[in-house]
């Protein structure tokens, strides 16, 4: 196995997954000397009553919840974080719990920067100022689905993205009471994002063995559970495994360069307002077909993760790439009923493809050429094979 000449790897997360995990929140907070958290939650969670289970986890602890700010829906804006800051300060909170997915965690991270740095605005950090060391403890409770970047040091708010090691949540909690997804599209989308992130990280330049370890776990879980998890989002075992896969893929994503599919999907999502996961679903098969047509190899480590020990051992070396790509396509096919299959269904205007390709190429630091990106988009748009 190849070990790069130089690599860095960092994962700040503590992952806690399994039965009765929520009940550990108070003792986790206490280990940071924190006793009064402010909860940022998704409106849908308070409406569905799940939040009650969450509150009973604090029974007998003597801790008080500083409040549950549940105004977040599917857009993370700075005004939400500023409102939350008012509550945080008024109640004298000392820590943050994010209960939900994507936007909730982004608002929580933004709030954390605001209350820890006392800056009143995020502008300087968006422009590149480093974040100091001591952010408040932030616990992320996985609920329903994942947008792929919660369990990383990325913060995306008002369509701007920043990255810092200090933005990692301290703990991610995956509890079977909250992990099951609400509907097949939701579960499918978060699985596709995890799949894309894991594959993208594994196909990047010089992956390290540590990165491979996270990719391995993520892809194994996806390969074994995606079918069931998408079909029955409420299945506890499958949804727990997919939630774990999301967290591990996120860590892998954070430690590698973003792949082409991710970059293009994010750009298209920005243009159309549709979520990025849906674009990943459409673009990923074409990326696979492109690799096949260029005779690019899938690394053995990736195929091992997709196929498992037994299938890997019984596949001759020359077959591994083809079989690996088939395995990915099979996984994507499980989302057939849940997600749109073509670019047309996603309403992308043709003239925007070029803009998206150029923006994605620029975002990769010219690692992917604009021509390659555009070619992928055009193939996908026309639905033609490589």
């Amino acid at each position: 196995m190849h070990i790069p000449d130089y690599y860095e790897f960092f994962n700040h997360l503590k992952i806690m997954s399994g039965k009765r995990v929520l009940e550990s929140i108070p003792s986790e907070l206490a280990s940071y000397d924190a006793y009064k958290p402010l909860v940022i939650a998704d409106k849908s969670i308070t409406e569905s009553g799940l939040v009650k289970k969450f509150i009973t986890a604090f029974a007998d602890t003597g801790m008080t919840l500083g409040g549950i700010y549940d105004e977040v829906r599917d857009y993370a804006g700075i005004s939400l974080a500023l409102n939350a800051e008012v509550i945080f300060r008024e109640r004298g909170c000392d820590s943050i719990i994010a209960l939900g997915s994507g936007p909730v965690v982004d608002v929580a991270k933004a709030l954390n920067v605001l209350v820890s740095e006392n800056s009143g605005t995020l502008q300087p950090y968006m422009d590149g100022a480093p974040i100091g060391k001591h952010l408040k403890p932030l616990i992320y409770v996985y609920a329903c689905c994942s947008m792929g970047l919660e369990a990383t040091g990325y913060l995306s708010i008002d369509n701007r993205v920043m990255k810092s090691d200090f933005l990692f949540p301290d703990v991610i909690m995956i509890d079977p009471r909250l992990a099951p997804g609400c509907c097949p599209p939701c579960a499918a989308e978060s699985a596709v994002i995890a799949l894309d992130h894991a594959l993208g990280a594994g196909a990047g330049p010089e992956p390290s063995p540590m990165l491979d370890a996270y990719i391995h776990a993520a892809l194994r879980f996806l390969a074994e559970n995606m079918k069931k998890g998408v079909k029955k989002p409420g299945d506890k075992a499958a949804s727990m495994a997919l939630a774990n896969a999301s967290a591990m893929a996120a860590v892998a994503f954070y430690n590698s360069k973003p792949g082409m599919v991710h970059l293009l999907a994010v750009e298209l999502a920005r243009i159309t307002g549709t979520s990025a996961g849906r674009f990943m679903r459409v673009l990923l098969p074409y990326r696979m077909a492109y690799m096949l047509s260029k005779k690019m190899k899938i690394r053995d480590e990736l195929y091992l993760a997709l196929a498992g020990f037994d299938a890997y051992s019984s596949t001759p070396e020359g077959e591994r790439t083809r079989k690996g790509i088939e395995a990915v396509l099979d996984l994507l096919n499980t989302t057939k009923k849940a997600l749109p299959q073509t670019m047309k269904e996603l309403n992308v205007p043709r003239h925007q493809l070029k803009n998206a390709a150029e923006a994605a190429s620029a975002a990769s630091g010219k690692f992917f050429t604009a021509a390659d990106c555009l070619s992928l988009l055009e193939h996908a748009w026309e639905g033609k094979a490589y």
Partner: protein
Amino acid sequence: MLLPSFYDFCCRVKTISGNKALEKIPVLLAGMNAKKPMIVTDKGVVAVGLIDVIKKAIGTKLKIGAIFDGAPIDSDYKVVNAAAKIYRQKGCDSIIAIGGGSAMDTAKGINILVSLGGDNLLDYEGAGAVKKKLNPLIAIPTTSGTGSEMTLVAVIADPERKVKMTFVSYFVLPDIALLDPRMTKTLPPALTTSTAMDAMTHAIEAYFCKEKNPVSDSHSLYAIKMISDNLLNVVKNPGDLKGRLALANASAMAGIAFSNSMVGLVHNMGHSTGAVCHVPHGVCMSIFLPYGLEYNLHRCADVIGEILFPLAGPEVYAATRKKDRAEKVIELIRKMNQDLYDATGGRHPRCLKEIMNRDGKQAVPQSILPAIAKATMMDGARLYNPEEILEYDSLMVLEHAYEGIPLDRSKIKKGGKKVAY
């Protein structure tokens, strides 16, 4: 991949690995707002000239505040207190720990004291006493085995009370683990084998013991693969920097795996033998490893069988029937010990009676086995082993390990069929 009914995993150490990793130290410290590090190490590291390698790599970009080379073999709280005094006198703001397990432990202890204040480490005894971010700490291992650059524990002895205090907190973790093959290049063959087998044991035990979890598992998987691919080569060609880097990576990953999923019988026996007979930890590990597998075989044969894949590669894995895989793993580990014995000219012991101390006498005489068995009952690793271990079980295993013969399976008391993870 198995998802246990509950698990937690955490390793907050930033890993920097590479052939030119040492050159990064000034930048890394600057990134943590530190300007004047203290080097904490032991006399052995200084003697083989590793400090000079580091000084050369750092160049003039960084001023070293102090070099403390007094880390003892069993880290001692008084040494920690003395070193903390030097740290403060010289106005240091960070620590670079260089060495094996004890140098790391000493450095972690110093860091607790200098960051939280006070001049006696004993004030911070007890779980949960460390609740704040400590000063920057960079750990540079010089043996590829202990994995202590990745663990959240500092074990520090109090010789007067004859206790080993453990300081456990995520804040005790080093900020950065720096793996550079130049730091392990000079490690003699016998130490290379024993430390690498120590890492191998971490990885394998983490894979089948009770706190097994998916993230640890995949770390174990790659660690086992890297060790079995590279160890024999490195013993034969000590200057093989690529192999050295692989072993350093394997050791770090095994450290991550076992500190998150704990260890069982092998460590239980190893700790106890080490404590009673003062035998190096790694040596015990390689001897007990096949017994740990045999003893637990009936509880988790399928899990142990999976280890065959990274250990022997896909061809052997495919050629071995599913029900024979676990036995094959045990066989290969025994063969590995034999190969290492041959490659080091007999300096890698295969059984307890082959361990010699400095005077060339047997370090573990047969008469002492009952005392070791008694000590195993007091070791925490007992709880994480899939099968129950009681005193007479330990003694039975010890007697076999003394002679180096495979375990008599009929003597194992079986408490159940499968272990619940």
